[in-house]
């Protein structure tokens, strides 16, 4: 079968989206491939399709458990049963049994820390690996958005697995990060495909407001005005909950909130409700959206400014996957960036905490105030690096902390300047990724934008809760 036939028969699509064909053909010609495709471009197809054309299993390394679960579920819903996810949530026996029968699986999803385990490497070595996929490959670079120290193991793991054909996928990596990906994955000869970060069907709008109190009123107006469904992003869990409630109290009954602090079961329900068109708006933190394949999201609103441009682009990328017009609106009040300064600081241990673990000789558990999981990972990772470099742990870790904070401040500032504007917004973000500007209609607020194009035509629906419980039961399980 040709790749088009596979595309249609297995996935039901008639044509590729930009970048998919190039990536797949590059892999099928046997070359290691680094592919940068914009969010919403259908990255997973780039390894799922070759999986059916190559002999052996496809190993996918994925940074987030929830993302992994989403991908596994999507494959299963499509009818693919030969899927397994190996992660720390698996019980000892489950893992052993999976490792014994690893060759039964076409798709093997792994969290990076699994590759630390000798028995996992051993089991992987015993099977034939058609393709080694590194999803969200920018996580490997400390200069990338969302750095994950465990990704540093991947180069060594690839070598241990006999240098299998490799695909590194990312939506967001500038030249520096891409170079880092090649180096850290120990890839010498790589075909690099970089596709535009631009999503022409998403119009870019930024609204400057004078004070925070204006925001909720403006948000309500927007949600009442805009075509649904949409996602509203917040920097904090509490504000996501508050505003979801506010919207509900003001007639937007089909709205809900979503954040990482909710129970897994509740998160899943909100995700399903949104996918099934039972919700018009989700007020969410950045935890929402990664693995969700919803095609018809018509707007993304940022109630708070994101931490940096890469995060912003990832999040607005959830709009308009169907190629139809969609709009992204960022609400900004001067000083919004302060929140991220605070968040950034709290991601790393402070100097005193670093001192306690290094010079003070405290164990990680005894540090006061107690370390968060992220802070602990940071300390463990860089203590090791310092030892490798034979440098003082305290000085080294402190320097790294300062360098990373400075980098984040730089990134924050880049986004702030972009918000404050001047010239075309699209051209400005494209230039960050060394792309040339493009002229298009409905580009951005600075080029001129007809907002009425995004106006909803039908009134918002209400919850249809007004049926008797007997009817509800009958709808659920038709009797007789």
């Amino acid at each position: 079968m040709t790749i088009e036939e596979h595309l249609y028969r297995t996935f039901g699509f008639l044509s590729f989206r930009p970048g998919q064909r190039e990536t797949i053909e590059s892999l099928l010609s046997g070359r290691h491939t680094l592919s940068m495709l914009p969010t919403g471009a259908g990255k997973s197809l780039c390894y799922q399709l070759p999986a059916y054309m190559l002999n052996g299993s496809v190993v996918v390394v994925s940074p987030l458990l929830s993302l992994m679960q989403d991908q596994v579920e999507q494959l299963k819903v499509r009818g693919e049963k030969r899927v397994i996810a190996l992660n720390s949530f698996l019980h000892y026996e489950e893992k052993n049994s999976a490792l014994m029968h690893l060759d039964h699986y076409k798709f093997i999803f792994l969290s990076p820390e699994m590759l630390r385990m000798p028995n996992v490497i051993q089991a992987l070595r015993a099977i034939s690996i058609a393709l080694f996929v590194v999803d969200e490959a920018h996580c490997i670079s400390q200069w990338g958005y969302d750095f994950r120290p465990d990704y540093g193991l991947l180069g060594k793991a690839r070598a241990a697995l006999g240098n299998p054909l490799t695909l590194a996928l990312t939506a967001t990596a500038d030249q520096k990060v891409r170079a880092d990906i090649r180096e850290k994955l120990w890839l010498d000869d790589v075909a690099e495909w970089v596709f535009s970060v631009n999503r022409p069907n998403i119009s870019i709008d930024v609204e400057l407001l004078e004070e925070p109190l204006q925001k909720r009123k403006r948000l309500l107006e927007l949600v009442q005005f805009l075509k649904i469904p949409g996602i509203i992003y917040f920097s904090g869990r509490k504000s996501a909950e508050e505003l979801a409630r506010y919207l509900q109290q003001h007639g937007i009954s089909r709205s809900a909130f979503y954040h990482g602090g909710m129970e897994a079961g509740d998160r899943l329900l909100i995700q399903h409700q949104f996918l099934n068109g039972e919700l018009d708006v989700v007020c969410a933190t950045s935890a929402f959206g990664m693995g969700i394949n919803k095609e018809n999201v018509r707007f993304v609103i940022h109630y708070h400014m994101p931490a940096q441009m890469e995060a912003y682009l990832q999040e607005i990328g959830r709009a308009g996957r169907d190629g139809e017009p969609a709009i992204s609106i960022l609400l900004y009040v001067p000083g919004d960036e302060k929140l991220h300064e605070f968040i950034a600081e709290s991601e790393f241990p402070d100097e005193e905490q670093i001192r306690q673990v290094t010079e003070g000789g405290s164990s990680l558990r005894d540090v006061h105030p107690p370390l968060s999981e992220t802070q602990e990972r940071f300390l463990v990772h860089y203590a090791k690096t310092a030892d490798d470099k034979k440098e003082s742990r305290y000085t080294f870790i402190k320097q790294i902390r300062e360098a990373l904070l400075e980098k984040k401040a730089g990134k924050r500032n880049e986004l702030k300047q972009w918000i404050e504007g001047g010239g075309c917004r699209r051209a400005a973000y494209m230039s960050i990724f060394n792309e040339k500007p493009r002229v298009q209609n409905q580009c951005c607020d600075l080029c001129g934008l007809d907002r009425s194009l995004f106006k909803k035509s039908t009134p918002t629906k209400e919850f249809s809760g007004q049926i008797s419980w007997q009817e509800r039961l009958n709808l659920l399980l038709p009797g007789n």
Partner: protein
Amino acid sequence: MRCLEAVVLLMLDEIGGERTPSSVFHLLKGKKSAQTIQDAHLFKLDKWFQSAPFLQMDVFDELIRHLQEAGWLEGERQRLFVTTKGRDEIAAAFNQTGSFPFLSGWKLAGTAPLFFSRLQLVVQVVSHLAYKDRTYYPITRDEQVQQWVKQFIKKSASEKDTLASQLHQELLSVLEQQPEHPDCLLLRFSGHGQTGKTVEQTADILQMERTEYWFRFLHSLHAVIQVVMEKSEDVPLLHRLLNGITVSVPLTDSARKTAAYLHKGMTVDQVAAVRGLKRATIEDHVVELAINDPHFSIRPFISEQKEAAVRRAGQSNGGRQLKPLKDQLPDHSYFEIRLVLAKESRE
């Protein structure tokens, strides 16, 4: 007043200053310590055992502070008494919600979540089968529940065409026999064309304060399970959902004595000491109880994870023999493995 506050006040009133407020916290969370289990029975608070597993210590502390400030509690922080005003509040609150007579935390806290999880998935699968809709995402990601339901559906293959209407009839029957509004449960189910609501959403739709909804939901669920247990022949499908979760019948006198001590909240070692028997003998009794008593929970003696591990190991080598299982499960004691086998033997 929030329902949870009324429940906490009621519990503090039963305790009457003989324990600290944190004992109420542990009871609501369902802590498996001898002290908490003993408290549950000593103060006749066993129905509330593990009835608010979502509770956090800081939220609980805040709640206590609020009850003090409102003048419903008095005394020192570690020794609190409900005031007359507080008692009026309790009465008013329970007058509105009822006293949750079917709530049975001690007996059902282990059973109810798993039963509900299976029921949710069975309803979803059967609903989609009935509508011939094959693409949907399962309501739970719990692999064990998924596997269990898969087997359940497989075994029901002969009745596939009537499954939906049979399940409909059974649910209708149990919902009519429980005391709360049936939507407390029904809104939580996913099926073809409708997704289940979260706790929060259901409370909003039913216009209830959130913790009130939670206790009504739990009350309804416990009542349903008791109906299913008592009238199993009327609701065979629902009764099958309890397979492997609960167990039933006669004991040796010695085991009965041990049971009485355990019921008071003693640990295996304490019972051994009191009765002047070896620990191994008491363990035998516990296993006997697990085999025979339908309401006996093995949970205080083995965690859910460890239990699941034994079950999986048993499935993979098809064995009931102890030694091979023990070899496979180096972190388990023989006692733990026997307990799970005992429970399985009732299924």
